């Protein structure tokens, strides 16, 4: 009885049916593996797609990474954030273009989680806070796939959630025999994203499952809970899940740290709301 699951896997494997990513991203991926290629050559590749580089810079300068308006070139973005992050930003900006229009609530939720993850990673002095933000930005990417590739099921999920008071993930498991975390994992693998982004996407509802990138996964999990608690954006349901004890312990969180993280995040969410409104208004067709 795993017809639905097989069907979804097939959809993900059939890259032709997926939202297409700019050719630049594939090129960037292969360049990143070649040590002989300089950052400036990579920057030239990204810059060749003007729309894409504008979007990447817009994301880099948003509240998620804390550079607020100081990154003006793609080379700077590559040096500050690293190739993997820029590649993921390019992917997220392409994907979010679909999200912005279809699911504004989910886009805001994802941005909120990215900000919360960044604040928490920095507060806990964890390595690579930018990578953690990027993983957080992409954590619900599986939901986007359900929304755009399985529209009927998505509507059905929405009904299930409101009628039975379920969380999105419970409704998905009931209806699809899989969930957005697993779908996101398949998608991230198809796109050849690095493992440090795949694991938080795959395990953000089951932190125990993460083995290599435990702290990134735990941060994304806690950040997700905080943003749901805050009521910022809309992830599909409005129920706050429990912070898994394993995540709390792995991060060595305390109530005092968490309270100060919440204060800082809530301040920054105003900027995120601004950013989202700006993007929505700038994307409106000019007539």
């Amino acid at each position, binding site marked *: 009885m795993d017809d639905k699951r097989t069907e979804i896997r097939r959809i993900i494997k059939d890259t032709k049916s997926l939202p297409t990513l700019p050719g630049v991203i594939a090129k960037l991926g292969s360049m990143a593996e070649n040590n002989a290629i300089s950052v400036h050559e990579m920057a030239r590749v990204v810059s060749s797609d003007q729309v894409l580089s504008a979007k990447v810079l817009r994301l880099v300068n948003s509240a998620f990474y804390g550079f607020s308006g100081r990154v003006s070139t793609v080379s700077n973005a590559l040096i500050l954030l690293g190739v993997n992050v820029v590649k993921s930003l390019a992917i997220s900006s392409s994907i979010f273009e679909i999200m912005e229009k279809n699911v504004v609530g989910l886009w805001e939720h994802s941005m909120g989680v990215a900000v919360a993850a960044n604040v928490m990673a920095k507060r806990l002095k964890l390595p690579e806070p930018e990578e953690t933000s990027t993983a957080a930005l992409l954590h619900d990417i599986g939901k986007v796939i359900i929304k755009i590739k399985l529209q009927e099921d998505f509507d059905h999920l929405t009904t299930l959630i409101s009628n039975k008071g379920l969380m999105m993930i419970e409704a998905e498991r009931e209806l699809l025999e899989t969930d957005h975390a697993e779908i996101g994992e398949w998608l991230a693998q198809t796109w050849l994203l690095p493992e440090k982004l795949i694991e938080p996407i795959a395990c953000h509802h089951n932190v125990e499952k993460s083995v290599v990138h435990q702290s990134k996964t735990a941060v994304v999990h806690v950040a997700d809970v905080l943003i749901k*608690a805050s009521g910022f954006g809309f992830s599909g349901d409005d129920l706050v899940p429990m912070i898994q004890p394993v995540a709390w312990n792995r991060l060595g969180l305390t109530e005092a740290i968490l309270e100060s993280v919440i204060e800082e995040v809530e301040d920054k969410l105003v900027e995120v709301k601004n950013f989202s409104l700006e993007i929505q208004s700038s994307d409106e067709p000019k007539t």
Partner: protein
Amino acid sequence: MQNIPITLAAPGMIMAKEIKASDDPASMTVCGKGVKLSESLIDRLRQMGIQSLFVEGHPIALEGETTLEEMLAALDKRFIRVAGDPLMVKIKGMYVRHIQRSMGAADGR
């Protein structure tokens, strides 16, 4: 005190927190606490890339006409599944305190 996006700032509002030129607390103050906003000041702040500011009272109803009571009721509803978990109850308390503070003692409405 309310944190509002600059797009909603209006002449007459009073700054509740100063704005610094950068995240560095040692940097120059761009606009001091207690300053009354004017059209030209708002324009200047916008040109400097300031995205949000803290103003006195609670002049803007950001999400429709949500009142403090409604915000707290919505918070209760969101936490319904974890109401029996001691840690989550404490976290809910942190949000209650935040909401009460952000709505300010001097609610504008």
